[in-house]
């Protein structure tokens, strides 16, 4: 039975209303922009890392509930993670929103709330914008990210 709440779960509505880690991070050592030209979603990701661990992470920008909640949940999940763990989580999130494969609920934690996105092909890019931006930032790529 179709239910819009499968997409807009309580966790998502909450993180959209009060995004965590929102605002510029002073003394960030990596700053990267992500842009979704089709819908106009824009975000800037701020990172503090020592090359091994993500010590701090924040974002700002504007976008739909899916993109804001995804960035909020992602930054929460990434704090204190090693770069290797970040890469694993990136791949697992990609699996969550783009495939029908089983996903690792334990690893994803609250991020699993975004599972409903895969049923809305037009909205997958909303959920993944911040992730692609983080991925590029960690790869040392400093060209702004665009999802299309």
């Amino acid at each position, binding site marked *: 039975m*179709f239910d*819009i*709440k499968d*997409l*807009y779960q309580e966790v998502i*509505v909450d993180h*959209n*209303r009060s995004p965590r880690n929102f605002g510029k991070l002073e003394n960030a050592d990596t700053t990267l922009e992500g842009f979704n030209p*089709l*819908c*106009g*979603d*824009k975000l800037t990701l701020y990172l503090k890392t020592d090359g091994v661990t993500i010590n701090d992470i924040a974002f700002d920008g*504007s*976008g*739909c*509930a*899916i993109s804001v909640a995804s960035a909020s949940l992602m930054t929460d999940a990434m704090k204190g993670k090693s770069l290797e763990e970040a890469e694993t989580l990136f791949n697992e999130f990609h699996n969550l929103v783009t495939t029908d494969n089983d996903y690792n609920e334990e690893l994803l934690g609250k991020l699993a709330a975004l599972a409903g996105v895969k049923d*809305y092909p037009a*909205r997958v890019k*909303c959920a993944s914008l911040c992730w692609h931006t983080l991925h590029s930032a960690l790869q040392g790529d400093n060209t702004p990210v665009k999802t299309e």
Partner: protein
Amino acid sequence: MNNPNTVTTLINKTAEFDVAKIRADFPILNEKIHGKPLVYLDNAATAQKPSHVIEVLNDYYRETNSNIHRGVHTLSEKATAQYESARNKVKDFVNAESTKEIIFVRGTTDAINLVAQSFGRDTLKAGDEIIITELEHHSNIVPWQILSDQTGATLRYVPINDAGELILEEFEKLLNNKTRIVAVGHISNALGTINPIKTIIDKAHAVGAKVLVDGAQAVPHTRVDVKALDCDFYAFSGHKLFGPTGIGVLYGKEALLDAMPPYQGGGDMIQMVTMEKSTYNVLPYKFEAGTPHIAGVIGLGAAIDYVNELGLEAAAQYEIELLDYANEQATQVAGLNLVGTAKNKTSILSFTLDGIHPHDIGTILDGEGVAIRAGHHCAMPVMERFNVPATARASFAFYNTRQEVDALIQAIDKCQKVFN
């Protein structure tokens, strides 16, 4: 609505205009979306097709399909006759002087590019000026930006006020003896504003400029008379006029089209080709290189037959009343902000909801079967002017009903419930 006279008039008008009967002409309106009846309010993006158009297309491919202007065989003659008969229908529809002034193109975008690249590139030089407006769709901005880059001409924009209306005093200030082209939308796709194009055309002509009108949003809602307007070019698309996609029309004054160089080279647009040079065909064929969208043209002719039969004037009146009703309902919704409140507007309700992004509105409305557009509507300068990244846009056609407006309002309520 408290005035009893108004109510009586409304009932009479509605009685004349039998929406239930009209809806039966559009098979797609019976579709269910997520188990709910489709409420199609994305007509400014593309309109639905009546059975008559669908059947004409079907019959063409089943019984007549053939190339035109070439064969001596029966089918080719039949296809050519249908194609040229559609051109005649378009000529009458916009009240052009001659079928030589009716060029079939892919759509409004193609028509504007044709004028920019053929007329514009041939006549503009560095220092000349082109005037467009802040209200334009990207398809009436980008071709002129390209032309400006190519020729060194300057592009100027007429600003809009907070209601989304062109500021005519500013337009008059921009006009001068360097103005060569004025390109303006008849009706704004993002806000629904009806522009005073007759005034704009007259003022532009007074300084010797030529005027192109982007009529993509106008032809489905208003009777267009190119002679009365005295516009130099008028562009529109078939698919917004209940016809097929991929077909559109450029009307141009014969003398202008005649003096313009071809836009594309190929078959059908020539009289004689040798290895050294070619001589070009007469109007309108000079601008129709290659095998055209024959079925599309015939389908467009069928769409014009349909709206003529229906009566565009009665439909327009019905749409105005429907928009008034939608406006009334929408203004009662707390947290809903209308974007574009021009005194003279039609068929478009662009809005935002406090704290809810238009894309989320679009998705949640779809869950209720309500199809709207969410985004920048290919009019990013308009969004910038109103300082919003996007809006939600409900756009109406004559087959929409008050019940569908109610469904929209209920779906908006659902939206607010999901987020609050």
